Structure formats: C-alpha cells, structure tokens
C-alpha cells in the first residue's frame, strides 16, 4: 500500500470515495508528476481532516474527552493547591507535573483502541502518540493537558454509518 493510500485510508472512511480520489490523484500524478501529487495531497488535508472530524459523533467524542480529561484537571488543581502550601522552588515542582501527565497514557491508549475498533488503521496514530507524549514532557504542564484534550477531541469518537450510492 502506498503512502498516499495510507493517508487517505486514515482520513476518508467511505471506500467508494477513497477509491475515486486515489484514481484522480493517480491521473493527476500521471499528468503533472509525483511532486504535484504530494502537493495535491497536502492541499487536501485540511478539508479531509475537517470532514473526518465532523463525521465522528461529536457528542460522544466530546463526552469521552470530558470524562477523560476532567478528573485529571481536578487532580491537577488539587496538586497545584497542595504544592502552593509547600515552599518549593519552581524547578522542584516540575517532576511532579511530569508524573501527573503519566495517567494520561491509558486515556490515550483507550482513544487509539477506540479508533482501531472502528476499523481505521491506527498506524499513524501510533506514531503520533509517543510524539505527543514526548512533547508533553517538554512543555509546561497546562499546555500538555490541553494538547491531550485537543488530541482526544479531534480523533476519538464513533463513526456514523455511511450511505454510499452506486
């Protein structure tokens, strides 16, 4: 399977539309060359991502994100309050925040598993996951939490059954 096919398989859930797009992209590449093909794929990404996001059941997705993130935010606030009572230097508190990001690991795994169950390949999600984890340890803690939340909101959720003509 080519890289373009993998990208489209992750973003376009309708097999009929995906096949039509792949055919059009192949025709475009035959006429203008491989760089034009990737340019076209790149230009298409925002629309495809937006459509994929809208296609997911938004209420279920947002609920899942809130259920996942809300308890962690509460824990974060409690820890912030507790730490504020102890006279620590800012650098001493940092490992504590890193420890707090670890509970998000099962949440992210659950998200990826939910996606995989829905039938989409989770390969690129698997690559994104450790990248996001690494990023969260490097960023200040509030940003890390919000990044996780955005990630979950964007990619989790069930799929609506699709009606395909012809």
């Amino acid at each position, binding site marked *: 399977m080519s890289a373009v096919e993998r990208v489209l398989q992750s973003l*376009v859930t*309708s097999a*009929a*539309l995906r*096949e*039509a*797009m*792949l*055919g*059009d*992209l*192949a*025709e*475009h590449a*035959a*006429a203008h060359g491989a760089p034009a093909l990737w340019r*076209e*794929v790149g*230009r*298409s*990404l*925002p*629309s*495809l991502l*937006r*459509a994929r996001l809208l296609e997911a059941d938004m209420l279920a997705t947002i609920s899942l994100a809130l259920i996942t993130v809300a308890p962690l935010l509460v824990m974060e606030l409690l820890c912030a309050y507790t730490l504020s009572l102890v006279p620590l230097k800012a650098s001493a508190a940092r490992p504590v925040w890193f420890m707090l990001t670890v509970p998000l690991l099962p949440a992210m795994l659950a998200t990826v598993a939910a996606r995989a169950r829905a039938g989409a390949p989770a390969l690129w999600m698997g690559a994104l996951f450790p990248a996001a984890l690494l990023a969260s340890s490097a960023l200040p803690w509030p940003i890390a939490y919000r990044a996780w939340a955005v990630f979950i909101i964007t990619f989790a959720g069930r799929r609506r059954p699709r*009606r395909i*003509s*012809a």
Partner: protein
Amino acid sequence: MSRGEFLGDFEQLILLAVLRLDREAYGLGIQQELSARAGREASIGAIYTTLDRLEQKQLVRSELGESTAERGGRAKRIFTVTPAGKAALRQSIGATRAMADGLKGLGLA
C-alpha cells in the same frame, strides 16, 4: 432541502460545474472546470468532501465510470445533479440575484 436552507458558495460552484460537465463530472474534471471558469483553485479533497456532503443531502448522485491505466485501474466516480439539486441551485441563485438586483455600483448591470 428545506425552505430557507441555502447552498454555500462552494456548493453552488460545484453543482454548476457538475451540470456543465454532464457525463464527465468527476473529481479532477470538476477541479479543472472550477479553475478554468471560476478561477477557483480547489483541492481534490475539498471537492470530494463537498460532493459527499451534497450526496448525503441528495442533491447529487454518483455512479462508477470508466477505469483507465493512468488512474491505476481505478474507476471514475461520475456525479449528476438530482432534481432536488437543480431546485436548490435555482433557489440559491435566485436569492443572490434578488439581493443584487437594482444595486448600483457593483457593475453588474
């Protein structure tokens, strides 16, 4: 399409392109038509996501067309505008015309 629900600008252009291209209305053809006539450089992804939305609204329908070697053996998906699509287009263009009608300074008259 319910009364008062209008097509978006891009949806309108796509429907017009599908009507113009007749039996040649597939993704790449629509993209070229939009570029040539409307000067709109839309991506294949934007065109297909819009066509998919229009199909869900039953304003267009699609069927499989020919497959060629240069398409990697994949068939074209040919789109046609449904009667509901034509009605929506008439309503939408009519509303735009009604709003623009009699306006001076636009250089339309």
